[in-house]
C-alpha cells in the first residue's frame, strides 16, 4: 500500500535519511524504531509531505506522493499524529475531532456564511461521526471539555481520534506513547490494535520497545538515517546489529 523507495534527505551536513526503502502492506501494523536522531520523525515528515525528499519515491496506493502538499496527502487517505501534541487551542475536544472530518465534508465559505440547508445536515453528520469516533477511542465523555485543559494522556486520545476522524486508509503515528505511563501505554496499544482491526493500516514511529514488540506485525530499524534491519518482531529482537545499536558494542 505504501512503498518507500530510496528516500534521501539532507539537512546541511547531516544526512538525516539515507537511501531508505521499505514497504507497508495493507492491514498491517508496521513500526519504525531506532535511537534518538535516527531520522524517524524526518522520515514521517517526508511521507506526510511536510518535508521534500532530496531524492527517492514515495508511492501510496500506486500513486506517487513525494511532491504533494500535506493537505493533499491527507486527502488521499493518509492521516497522522504528532510527537509533540498539536491540538487546536480554544476548541473543545469534540471540535478538534470535527476538524478531522474536514476531508470527508465539503461545505465552503458561501455555504457556511448563508448556513444553507445542506451545510446544516452535513454539520450534524460531522458531529455524530466525530462523537462515534470519540466513543470508539473511549473519550466520548471529554467531548465538551476544552482540548488543552485535558490531561496529557487524554490529549493523546483526542489526537488519535482526530486523525481517525478522516476515515484514513493509512495512519502515521509519531511516538503515540511518548510521555505516557505504563498503564496509558497499554491502553494506546489496545487502541492501535482496534484501529488495525477496522482495516486501517498503521505505521508507527516509536521509542517504547514494549509497545512496538507487542503490537507490530513488522519492524524497520533505522540508525543514523539508514535502514539497518527489517523483519518480524522476533527476528528484530535477535538481530545482532540492532542489539549493538540499542545496547552498545560489547567493547564499549
Amino acid at each position, binding site marked *: 500500500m505504501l512503498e518507500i523507495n530510496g528516500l534521501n534527505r539532507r539537512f546541511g551536513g547531516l544526512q538525516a535519511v539515507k537511501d531508505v526503502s521499505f514497504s507497508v502492506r495493507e492491514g498491517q501494523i508496521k513500526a519504525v524504531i531506532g535511537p534518538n536522531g535516527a531520522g524517524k520523525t524526518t522520515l514521517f515528515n517526508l511521507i506526510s509531505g511536510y518535508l521534500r525528499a532530496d531524492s527517492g519515491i514515495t508511492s501510496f496506493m500506486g500513486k506517487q506522493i513525494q511532491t504533494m502538499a500535506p*493537505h493533499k496527502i*491527507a486527502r488521499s487517505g493518509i492521516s497522522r499524529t504528532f510527537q509533540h501534541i498539536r491540538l487546536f487551542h480554544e476548541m473543545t475536544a469534540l471540535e478538534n475531532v470535527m476538524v478531522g472530518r*474536514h*476531508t470527508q465534508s465539503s461545505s465552503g*465559505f458561501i455555504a457556511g456564511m448563508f448556513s444553507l440547508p445542506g451545510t446544516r445536515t452535513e454539520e450534524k453528520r460531522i458531529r455524530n461521526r466525530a462523537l462515534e469516533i470519540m466513543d470508539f477511542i473511549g473519550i466520548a465523555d471529554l467531548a465538551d471539555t476544552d482540548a488543552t485543559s485535558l490531561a496529557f494522556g487524554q490529549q493523546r486520545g483526542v489526537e488519535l481520534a482526530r486523525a481517525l476522524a478522516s476515515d484514513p486508509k493509512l495512519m502515521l503515528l509519531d511516538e503515540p506513547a511518548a510521555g505516557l505511563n505504563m498503564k496509558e501505554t497499554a491502553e494506546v496499544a489496545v487502541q492501535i490494535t482496534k484501529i488495525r482491526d477496522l482495516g486501517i493500516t498503521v505505521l508507527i514511529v516509536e521509542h517504547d520497545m514494549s509497545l512496538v514488540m507487542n503490537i507490530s506485525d513488522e519492524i524497520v530499524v533505522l540508525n543514523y538515517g539508514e535502514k539497518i534491519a527489517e523483519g518480524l518482531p522476533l527476528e528484530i529482537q535477535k538481530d545482532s546489529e540492532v542489539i549493538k545499536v540499542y545496547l552498545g558494542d560489547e567493547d564499549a
Partner: protein
Amino acid sequence: MPDRRFIHIGFFAGAGIIIQLLTYFTGTGYFLTQLTMSSYYAIVIIGLCMLMGYAGQISIGHAGFFAIGGYLSSAMTTHDLTPFKGSLPVRLLDSIGFLVDRQGLYGEQILHFQPWVSFIFAVLVTVAIAYLIGGPVLKLKGHYLAMATLGFGTIIYSIVIGTPVFGEADGISDVPAFALLPGLTVSGKMSVRIENFYIAWGLMSICMLLLLNLVNSRVGRALRSIHSAEDAANAMGVDTATYKLRIFVISAVFASVAGVLMTHFNGGIGPSEASIMKSVRYVAIVAVGGMANLWGALIMGLVLNFLSLRGYFGSLDDAVFGGILIVIMLFSPKGLLRKETLSYMRDIVLQRGSEEDNA
C-alpha cells in the same frame, strides 16, 4: 444551534430600534449621524475580527480596502464624463444603462456612473487586489505579515493622496446619493437620516449573521484550527493557504462595502480614511473586543467609533487608540472581552455578592 444565533441577531437588530427611539425621546436625533457611521465602521471591524481573531492573520492595512471601496465609487460617481460623450466606450456604457445624468452645484449637467455600477466595480477591484496582495503576503507570519500589510496600507494612502482623480489631499466631495432599492437611499440628507440609520444598522446585523454562521461552520472550524496549529490543520487536509487567502478577501470585501456606503452617506471621502492610523484603530478595536469574539468586536466597534466621532477623545483621538493597543498588548494580549476574562470578572462579582449575603 442556528436558532440561538438568530435570536441573538434578532435582539441586536431590535436594539437598533430602541436606540433610534431613545434619540427621538431624548431629542438627540443628531446622534444618528455618528451611529450610522459607527455601524459602517463596525462592518470593517467584524470582518477584520474574523481574519485576525479566528484565522489568526493580522492586517494593518484594512483602511486601504475601505479606501479602495470609498474612493473608487466616489470617483466614478463624481467624475464628469460629458466631455467624452462622443467616444465609443462612453456611448456603449450609456446605452447599457451604466451611466446617469445629474445636476451639478451650478446647474451644469454631470454624466457619471450609476452608483450600483460603481459599487459592484469597486467590490470587484477589491477582490482582485486582495487576491493579488494576499497571495504572496499571507505566506508570511507574525511580524512579517504585519509589516507587509502595513506596506500595502501605505501604498494605498500614497496613491489617494497623490492622484488628481482621487482629489489628492482634498479627497472627493459631492458624492451623490445611492439608491439601494426604490425607497432605500444611502444619503446624508436630513430627510433620510433615520432611514439611513436603519440601513446601516440592518446591513451590520446581516454581516454579523453571515460571520456568525461562518464561525460555526466547517470552514470556521478550519480557520480556527489554522490559528492554533497550522501544520496540524494541514495534516487534517485543510488547504491552509487557500483558506487564509479566502478569509482575507472576504474581510477586504467587508471593508470595501463599508467604504462605499459610508462615502455615499457622508457625500465624500478624504485621505484620512486611508491612513495607517485608521488601520491601527481597527486592529486596536478588534483587540479590545477580545480578538476571537465577534460580538465583542461589534460592540466595541460601535461604542469606540461613536465616542471618537462625537469627539469625546478630543485632540487625543489617535493617541487613545494607540494607548488602547499598548495596554491590551501588555496586560491582555489575547484581547479584553474574552470568555475567560468575563467569567473571571463574573466570579469576582458573584463572590463579592455572596460575601455581602453572609455579612
